[in-house]
């Protein structure tokens, strides 16, 4: 049996932002890893810290943000503290990224051909004709309709789905070992989203690229990921295989999040089960468990002491005191 190859290993990551009102911590003690050929979903609602985690890995935090502690190892290399020049080289070649809004990532004054050829020739010596041929090949790979004609298009001449295909083609141009996809289908129509998810699944089977998929949509998680890391208010609250976490969530937050999805309740007489209250403010994080103020199972300890990520069956873990006192069975009423 082949030894699993860890492509990305994030340990105890803390990301802080300087603000007028003092420092805030957007990501607290986040740890997870991704193996070769694996898709890990980072899922959470707004303010969960999922996007900041992705930007921390890429070294693309805004100037007010900084990694305050922790380690990010990529293929055994420490990325935290690496000079920008070296980070940029890794970002260009070994870690690729696609974002929610491809319109802001593509250059409006260059054609698809210009941009793909540029992406191809930055990191390798390649003749103009070979680069062009490879660009068409990449557009075919991302199933762009009429790829030859699309080479001459500017981004405003492309639909949202086509732009995202170009972004994916550019990401693939460097044959990356890790692809970070931050809400890549959120702005797309649902029938186009299904095509892009299909495409990403197929490409991964073929290339074995590890994917970190950042999303708020548990349906998308179910469809693309092997493992899922659920975040809430800057912390990982549950981690495990997608099947285990979505079919049998152990953390009260994951349970409540799944319960609140409208697709689960059919019929007009039914009612949804929302999570009452709001995500805590970064400036006023609860002292104990950050979910405690909204958690129906919270008891005194939860409000005083933050629970650690505790192992629950197999390779799963969940951040909840209920696991400590063996009360979890009662939590799922």
């Amino acid at each position, binding site marked *: 049996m082949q030894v699993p190859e860890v492509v990305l290993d994030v340990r105890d990551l803390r990301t802080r932002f300087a603000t007028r009102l003092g420092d805030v911590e957007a990501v607290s003690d986040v740890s997870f890893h991704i193996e070769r050929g694996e898709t890990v979903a980072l899922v959470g609602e707004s303010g969960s810290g999922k996007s900041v985690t992705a930007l921390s890995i890429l070294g693309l935090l805004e100037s007010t943000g900084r990694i305050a502690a922790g380690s990010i190892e990529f293929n055994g290399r420490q990325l935290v503290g690496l000079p920008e020049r070296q980070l940029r080289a890794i970002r260009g070649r070994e870690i690729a990224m696609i974002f929610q809004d491809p319109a802001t990532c593509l250059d409006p004054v260059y054609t698809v051909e210009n941009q793909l050829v540029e992406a191809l020739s930055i990191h390798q010596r390649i003749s103009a004709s070979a680069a062009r041929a490879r660009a068409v090949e990449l557009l075919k790979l991302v199933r762009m309709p009429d790829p030859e004609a699309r080479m001459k298009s500017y981004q405003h001449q492309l639909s*949202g*789905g086509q732009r995202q295909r170009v972004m994916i083609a550019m990401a693939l141009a460097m044959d990356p070992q890790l692809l970070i996809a931050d809400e890549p289908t959120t702005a797309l129509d649902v*029938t186009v989203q*299904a095509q892009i998810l299909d495409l990403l699944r197929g490409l991964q089977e073929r290339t074995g690229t590890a994917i970190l998929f950042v999303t708020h949509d548990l349906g998308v998680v179910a469809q693309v990921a092997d493992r899922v890391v659920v975040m809430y208010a800057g912390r990982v609250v549950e981690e495990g295989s997608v099947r285990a976490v979505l079919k049998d969530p152990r953390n009260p937050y994951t349970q409540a999040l799944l319960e*609140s*999805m409208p697709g689960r309740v*059919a019929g*007009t007489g039914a009612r*949804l089960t929302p999570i009452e209250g*709001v995500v805590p403010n970064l400036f006023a994080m609860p002292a104990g468990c950050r979910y405690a103020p909204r958690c129906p199972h919270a008891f005194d300890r939860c409000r005083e002491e933050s629970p650690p990520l505790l192992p629950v069956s197999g390779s799963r873990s969940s951040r909840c005191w209920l696991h400590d006192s063996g009360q979890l069975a009662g939590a799922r009423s």
Partner: protein
Amino acid sequence: MAVTLDGPAANGSDAAERPLLEVRDLVKHFPIRRGLLQKTIGHVRAVDGVSFDVARGSTLALVGESGCGKTTTGRLILRLLEPTSGSVRFEGRELQSYSAAELRQLRRRAQIIFQDPFSSLDPRMSTIDIVGEGLEIHGLVDRHERVDRVAGLLEQVGLSRNDLRKFPHQFSGGQRQRIGIARALATGPDLVVCDEAVSALDVSIQAQILNLLKDLQADLGLTYLFITHDLNVVRYTADRVAVMYLGQIVELAATEAIFEAPQHPYTKALLSAVPSIDPDERTEAHLQGDVPSPARPPSGCRFHTRCPHATAECATYEPVLTEVLPGHIAQACPCFVPDAMAAARKAVSAA
């Protein structure tokens, strides 16, 4: 072929059961202008012959992807836009025949909740001014009553009297949407158009707002036109669903019928594209390509360029809206109505 657009509740001849809203053959074409002289070089056919009824106290969902015309339809119904042709009747009266005074009344009785609770509230206005503005414009309260009325409205949507003097930036997205709802309710509307009202919210907060909208409907007898791209939300909120594609309704039926027995291939494809939360249930892409531009909609059946069942004839003949099952209307397609093409040909020769 006659098509019944009424829901089951609206079949009686009793005037009291007349639908609150009747929309017939509604069309809105936006001119595309170009050049120095702004010459019209074509039209975006945003809404192209849409008909439906909404019974009082019920919810009709208009659902579809970008460019399907759902938002434009909502704006036409509120007369925020003038239709190119067609009719909208509110309580049986044609909107086009409204006098200026009646139009003001309509503004009171038909309200809208917008998608983005961040840009739809004026950041320089306090809650009391945002929610109370409509009350004042319509002369519904004097200044003394205003505080109490607005406080009452805030409590109705789950906020409190303490929020009266706060400004939008002091609220979360969910709370802002509650303010948007309170503002819409202030004038005591009969009809509320919810235009992607929960689309910008996190799922746990979305559930709070959807429950609130449902409670308000039960308490106040509100009629909702629920415009959304999110089929999960539709299933929970709507009594009936109209599926739109490129300016036309392709299917209209009771919510259960749409979800359990969809007829039109577009409805089927749309439903199957929603990512299932069950990892063992693989969501496959059944459609290729994007939605075509409404400025150049395909000939014949507008869906034929993406339809897995399309034949050469689909590009020629426009499908006819047909009652394919009792109370279930769809653009008849040979893939589920055997004589659909014959009916389409007949429609052409009759015209």
